């Protein structure tokens, strides 16, 4: 399968847009899939000093093949460091060494609080989801959090979470606890980019993809989504970005489906 450089898939668009948001960042905590693609592309473009840390404990991976999990054997062989879990979670993450953490979720609300536990009641859920994993720690301890959501609809962008798994700083502050970071600052979706700068602020629509109207984004969002005065249209992936993504980052098109 080849694509001409003026055409791109939704995955390519999300990976490119997320990569640009990593400009000048130093350390990123990335999961597998789009976050790995975005971080790897950013390393080759806007963030040459970027160090990617995986939840499994791998720092400075030099994989021979695109990893299929955050713990893929190819991430370990030839890596600069492999840290035990208490060191990774305790010293690196809780220690405050991560600039940007990537998270996904089943549901997100206007303050960037996330649900990855259940649809319905926790005690008798309609759908039991995988649960917190390390997401709660990524949220509490990264300087800021980027969320990538392929699907932008009212089932995912909700007025009220069924369950708050990973709370942003607003909810923590309401309990009198001050977290390290700003919580979710960027949400990249199939429709555009939502952003907020930190506690007290709601997510606003700051950019739409070419051909997407603000009205369509607002309709697809479960709360009354504010639109930035200086709303922009996302610059489409450049030929250079697409070439790097296709030829260097994911030549086997493992995630660029």
């Amino acid at each position, binding site marked *: 399968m080849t694509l001409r450089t003026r055409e791109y898939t939704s995955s390519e668009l999300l990976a490119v847009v997320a990569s640009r948001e990593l400009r000048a960042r130093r350390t990123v905590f990335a999961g597998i899939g789009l976050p790995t693609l975005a971080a790897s592309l950013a390393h080759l473009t806007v963030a040459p000093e970027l160090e990617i840390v995986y939840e499994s404990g791998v720092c400075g991976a030099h994989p021979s093949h695109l990893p299929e999990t955050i713990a893929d054997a190819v991430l370990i062989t030839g890596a600069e460091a492999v840290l035990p879990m208490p060191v990774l979670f305790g010293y690196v993450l809780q220690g405050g060494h991560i600039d940007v953490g990537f998270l996904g979720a089943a549901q997100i609300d206007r303050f960037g609080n996330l649900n990855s536990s259940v649809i319905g009641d926790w005690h008798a859920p309609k759908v039991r989801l995988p649960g917190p994993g390390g997401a709660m720690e990524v949220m509490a301890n990264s300087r800021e959090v980027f969320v990538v959501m392929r699907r932008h609809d009212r089932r995912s962008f909700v007025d009220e979470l069924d369950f708050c*798994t990973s709370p942003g700083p607003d909810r923590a502050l309401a309990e009198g606890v001050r977290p390290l970071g700003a919580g979710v600052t960027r949400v990249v979706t199939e429709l555009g980019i939502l952003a907020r700068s930190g506690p007290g602020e709601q997510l606003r629509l700051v950019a739409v993809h070419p051909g997407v109207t603000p009205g369509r984004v607002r309709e697809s969002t479960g709360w009354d989504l504010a639109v930035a005065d200086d709303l922009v249209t996302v610059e489409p992936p450049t030929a250079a970005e697409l070439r790097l993504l296709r030829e260097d980052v994911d030549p086997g098109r493992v995630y660029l489906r």
Partner: protein
Amino acid sequence: MPRSVPAPPDKTMTMREAIAAHVHDGDTVSLEGFTHLIPTAAGHEIIRQGRRGLTIVRMTADIVVDQLLAAGCVSKLVSSFVGNSSAGSLGELRRRVESAEPEPLEFEEYSHYGMICRYLAGAQRLPFYPLRSYAGSDLPSVNTAIRTVTSPYAGERVYVVPPVNPDVTIVHAQRADRAGNTQVWGLTGVQAEAVFAARRAVVVVEEIVADEVVRSDPNRTVIPAHVVDAVVECPRGAHPSFAQGYYDRDNAFYRSWSAISRDPDRLQAWLAEWVHSTADHAAYVAKLGTEFWAGLEVGEALSLPVNYGRRL
């Protein structure tokens, strides 16, 4: 120095012996290994021996937990992630949790670091362990073991979790000597903490090696012999997960598990064929066949040696 030091204790036994001796009905059993070195073969032997009423403690409850659930071994699960890696769902777990079928499952949920801190507290014999997450989460509202403490310094409140001290911890590793000095490379996860926290510990290894191999690199020993009760040699015992440098992950099996586990009959048939009808893990390995294993083979990437030095 002593010329004839007594031989170190030999703790080797078969998997059957180790599970019979160290896993009892009603026990709290920790099975650790984060994606890497998951003690699947030990889980299968627990199923073969028909243990009941176990509390399973495992950060990433994945395929082996779904199998233990389906085999009726488990009455309670303590975990921070209940999914089939990124490859899909655990059918049996979802039935137990979503509709109490065929019976309810007691479920105690933490975050990954919450679980790690429970092991840290357990290993360090601490009454609690503080951490920086949980504030604002709904998790403490459904898990009353997650509490707070006020710091005696700046007076800030911080969440804490209680220790976990499993009756037995079972981990898989690349190699150990007969006394239980266990060496792991690649992802080392939380295995050492889970072993130190436990009353008893079983270490399953790809190979038991000569004392000299272990002793050529003492920094590689992440679990010292004095906390190990049984050493079991069980090659390929981590399948479908992987053992760095020994065999790769069986991603196809992970992807297939969602479909297998979605249908209770198909899941029971799978258990009957692959667990109950295999006498032990060697039979399971043989049944998969040499061609299958060739597909998971890995090449060589050797570490460069370091010099520990010798007094001249």
